[in-house]
């Protein structure tokens, strides 16, 4: 794997508020990379810095061996698909897509050919003469996508690409984006706040919070081995119990002891992360509690129960065992399940 984009110790502050705090990331050629984080985490600032719309306070952005920090946006071999799509309302679909090629002063014939074939690829072959306001949300998104990849940039940046779409269209577009990325062979960098979107599309994900990169890993790795409590909490559903380990048990700060035989040095403060599927509801369960809510998903049901463990416990049951709110419940988990997470 070759490194295409090397983001090195990048910092940026707005009014002394750090939007990017010493961010370092490496993105590989032909990778589908996602930057995931809550709003205000700095992910959009990072994307705009990559496109050239934000200057850096310090650090380098090296693209294909070249430091692009001082290259203006119109000269960077990077294109951005805007969250609002930013389609030019006074132009047709064809003219929108041809815009970038015309600025490169390509011959007419080549422009027509490339635009037409790309429109066909994104499924808009018969829409070339339409005005953008006549398109549906999904169609607008495809135009925006075509317009951003027609110049064959080294990296395509996508700012919350699916956030404006309905749920159904969004699922179709997720697959479509993956397919297209394979087809055109361009490195994609997606910014999103939607972990499901990032998990289902990306090869690797950088989780950001408060201007810092918390963890960079594959989706499976993020889910199975979160590097710190923030990532554990942010990715997927979990119950995070805080305490210290001593002789095969986790001592919570309120004095309650729960099973945990995972290897860790005694006495240090840790979080035990339990995924809902790690916990089972069983009559033999040693931990008792009261059901406070149930979320039915179809095949199974997420139960939230108050068990005196400082925070409510979340676990899954089959669709035939759904308890009612207020019911007493007994749960247990094996001592070697879950993951020990330390503050980074």
């Amino acid at each position, binding site marked *: 794997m070759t490194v295409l984009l090397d983001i090195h110790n990048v910092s940026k502050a707005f009014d002394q508020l750090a939007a990017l705090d010493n961010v370092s990331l490496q993105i590989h050629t032909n990778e589908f990379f996602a930057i995931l984080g809550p709003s205000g985490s700095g992910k959009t600032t990072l994307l705009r810095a990559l496109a050239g719309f934000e200057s850096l306070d310090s650090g380098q952005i090296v693209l294909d061996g070249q430091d692009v920090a001082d290259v203006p946006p*119109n000269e960077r071999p990077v294109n*951005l698909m805007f969250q609002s799509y930013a389609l*030019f309302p*006074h132009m047709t679909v064809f003219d929108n897509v041809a*815009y*970038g090629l015309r*600025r490169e002063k390509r011959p007419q014939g080549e422009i027509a050919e490339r635009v037409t074939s790309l429109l066909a690829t994104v499924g808009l072959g018969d829409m070339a003469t339409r005005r953008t306001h006549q398109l549906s949300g999904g169609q607008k998104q495809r135009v925006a996508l075509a317009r*951003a990849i027609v110049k064959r940039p080294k990296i395509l940046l996508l700012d919350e690409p699916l956030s404006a779409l309905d749920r159904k269209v969004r699922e179709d577009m997720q697959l479509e984006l993956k397919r297209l990325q394979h087809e055109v062979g361009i490195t994609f960098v997606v910014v999103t706040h939607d972990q499901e979107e990032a998990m289902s599309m990306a090869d690797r994900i950088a989780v950001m919070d408060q201007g810092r990169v918390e963890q960079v890993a594959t989706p499976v790795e993020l889910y199975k081995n979160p590097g710190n409590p923030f990532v554990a909490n942010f990715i997927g559903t979990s119950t995070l119990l805080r305490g210290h380990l001593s002789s095969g048990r986790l001592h919570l700060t309120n004095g309650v002891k729960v099973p945990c035989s995972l290897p860790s040095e005694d006495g240090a403060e840790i979080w035990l992360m339990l995924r809902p599927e790690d916990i089972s509801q069983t009559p033999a369960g040693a931990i008792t509690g009261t059901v406070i809510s149930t979320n039915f998903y179809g095949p199974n049901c997420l139960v939230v129960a108050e068990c005196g463990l400082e925070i409510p416990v979340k676990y899954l049951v089959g669709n035939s065992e759904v308890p009612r709110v207020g019911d007493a419940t007994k749960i247990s988990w094996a001592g070697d399940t879950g993951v020990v997470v330390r503050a980074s």
Partner: protein
Amino acid sequence: MTGVGKLGWVLAAVCFFLYAPIAIVIVMSFNASKIPFQWTGFSTKWYSELFANASVLEGLRNSLIVGVSTMILSVVLGVLLAIGITRHSTSSAVQALALAPAIIPDLALAIGLLALFSAISFPLGLTTVILSHTIFCMAFVAAIARGRILQIDPALEEAALDLGDTPRGVFFRVTVPSLMPAIIAGALLAFTLSFDEFVITFFTNGPSTPTLPIVIYSMVRFGVTPEINALASLVLLFSVAIVLISQRSVKLSQSI
């Protein structure tokens, strides 16, 4: 909705109040009689006399010169002003100041400009009228353009830049076209305002170049004549036509 009944009458009455006086002037303009208020038959002779009236024609010529020049100047300056105050200034004081000529009384602006021109000994004439009209028309154009700029997705310009266009190219290929509805509306508005403007013209014009409103003013002061009725009808019709065209073009271009 149930509220329409009674309020509907209010609306009808207000429209009657607004249009009846104008309608009467137009009807009177076709009166054959020279005595203003006695209807003696339909005639268009006052219109033909109007077109033979040298001072009216000269006023019309001057008004058109002033109107078109004002329109061009105020659109260019007004749009630039609007971009300047919305994009490059966060100070609300600057914004308020730039739009002030649209709000301060025309009389205050008029004497202020008269004082300014006389302080720098600039001879009064059509040039001073055009400059003065531009000052206040520009504020209206800027107000309209500002509204449009705030509507436009700021990502449009960034998108063009991202696709490799130069800042200059972005301005002419993206910024100006997306402001077009405001530019057309502003241009027509500036022309109408300038064409009908009286107070500022009255103070900043020289004696040898009367505009149409000045001509009308001097005619009206001598009382009601069928000729004024005809002139008034034409001017009314002209303004109404321009306003309707601008309404239409704004609607058309907004659908783009």
